[in-house]
């Protein structure tokens, strides 16, 4: 997490017409995948999450800009994560539950059974699919646009929305402040030990100066915003519109229909 390279305002735009995700309303991207994500929590098989994962990746490949970072995330970190979680979870599975499945690995008197692998990877794929679905919106929406859509379509009070926008500016500032505080405490010799407890004790020392500085800064920003008529009227002129168009409705309908179709076809519940 590097605060200095973080620019939440940098706009994300499509570089070719096929990258349709950028032109959609942020809420549409959430609404289209949310039912699938919620349902996924309760499925137990391998096929359903695998299909959702593939579908989400396909949507991203087509609809989003493939930068080095995105490719690394989708084709590197995500599969690796699934592999790690899959193996990790298979080790935890209760051996008696899967005692009647064939052994895959045998080390001394410890066996890894196929049933355990199935359960482990079902969980891993499920989490992977949920993450991939979230990335459809996450990689193609800026924080400010999400906030604006919240204000314009969900009727979140604009004062709350703009508070969130102002909060994006706090991130690099507080990040820098934290690094100065850490350096300052180090110089003071507040450096006792390197174990986890010493580390926690040290972090505790950063919290009050960090929060005290943060709250004072926030109070000053509030005065500046009040001075510029923030909250004068129940609404304000919006120059940046984040419209909700027919294509957004279409995207939601297609998304939900596809999710329903997959669930009906694969019927993943062990009833």
């Amino acid at each position: 997490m590097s605060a200095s390279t973080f620019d939440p305002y940098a706009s994300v735009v499509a570089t070719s017409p096929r990258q349709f995700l950028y032109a959609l309303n942020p809420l549409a991207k959430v609404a289209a995948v949310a039912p699938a994500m919620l349902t996924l929590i309760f499925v137990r098989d391998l096929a359903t999450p695998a299909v959702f994962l593939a579908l989400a990746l396909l949507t991203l490949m087509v609809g989003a800009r493939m930068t080095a970072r995105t490719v690394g995330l989708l084709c590197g970190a995500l599969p690796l994560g699934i592999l790690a979680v899959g193996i990790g979870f298979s080790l935890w599975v209760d051996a008696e539950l899967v005692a009647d499945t064939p052994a895959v690995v045998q080390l001394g008197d410890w066996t890894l059974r196929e049933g355990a692998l199935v359960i482990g990877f079902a969980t891993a794929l499920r989490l992977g699919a949920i993450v991939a679905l979230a990335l459809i919106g996450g990689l193609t929406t800026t924080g400010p646009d999400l906030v604006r859509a919240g204000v314009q379509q969900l009727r979140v009070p604009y004062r709350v929305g703009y508070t969130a926008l102002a909060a994006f500016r706090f991130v690099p500032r507080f990040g820098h402040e934290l690094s100065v505080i850490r350096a300052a405490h180090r110089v003071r010799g507040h450096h006792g030990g390197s174990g986890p407890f010493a580390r926690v004790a040290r972090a505790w020392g950063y919290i009050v100066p960090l929060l005290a500085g943060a709250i004072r800064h926030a109070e000053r920003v509030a005065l500046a915003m009040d001075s510029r008529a923030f909250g004068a009227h129940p609404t304000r002129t919006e120059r940046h519109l984040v419209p909700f168009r027919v294509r957004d409705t279409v995207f939601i309908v297609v998304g939900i229909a596809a999710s329903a179709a997959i669930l009906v076809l694969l019927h993943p519940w062990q009833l």
Partner: protein
Amino acid sequence: MASSPLLTTRVLLVCAAIGVATGILGGFAGLLTPGVIVLTPYLYGLVLGSHVLPGIIAQEVLRRPLVALVSHLIAAVISSAFNPAWSLRFIGTALLFGAIQEGVAALTRYRAWGAWRFFVSAAVIGVLVAVVVFFAVDLGAFPLWVQISYLVISVLGPIAWTAVGLGVGTSLSRAGVARR
């Protein structure tokens, strides 16, 4: 026109500051999440419990309606910008934790601010988290001792973090920050 709104700009921005600062500290905890899920899934409740912090600190510092919810939402929006993969989880926990903390405070009509009130919210949150995560990581397939320790830790996690949040709030008032 001469009446001031329920949440003044100052209160809103102090919530934002608390959300961002806990978000930065929580960002380090967020980096731990994948490792915890892989190595010690039953400890996940301890990590997830850290998400109670924005609301606790906001309520302890400001003692007003809605501040917990707003702080949670802002923390979630900020964390999502860093880590889009978890964005729905962030916003979901924010709404859930915020609603519970607000709900418990509302039941006492925003008058009782004793420590017990914060721990009640923490216990409610712990139980809810335990149930949802139980399904998400298929705990039913794990040995009984893992299931039990998981459930206990899920409830204890938010309670422990609530104690931390209260400690921070007390230190801040001692330092004279954000007098109510």
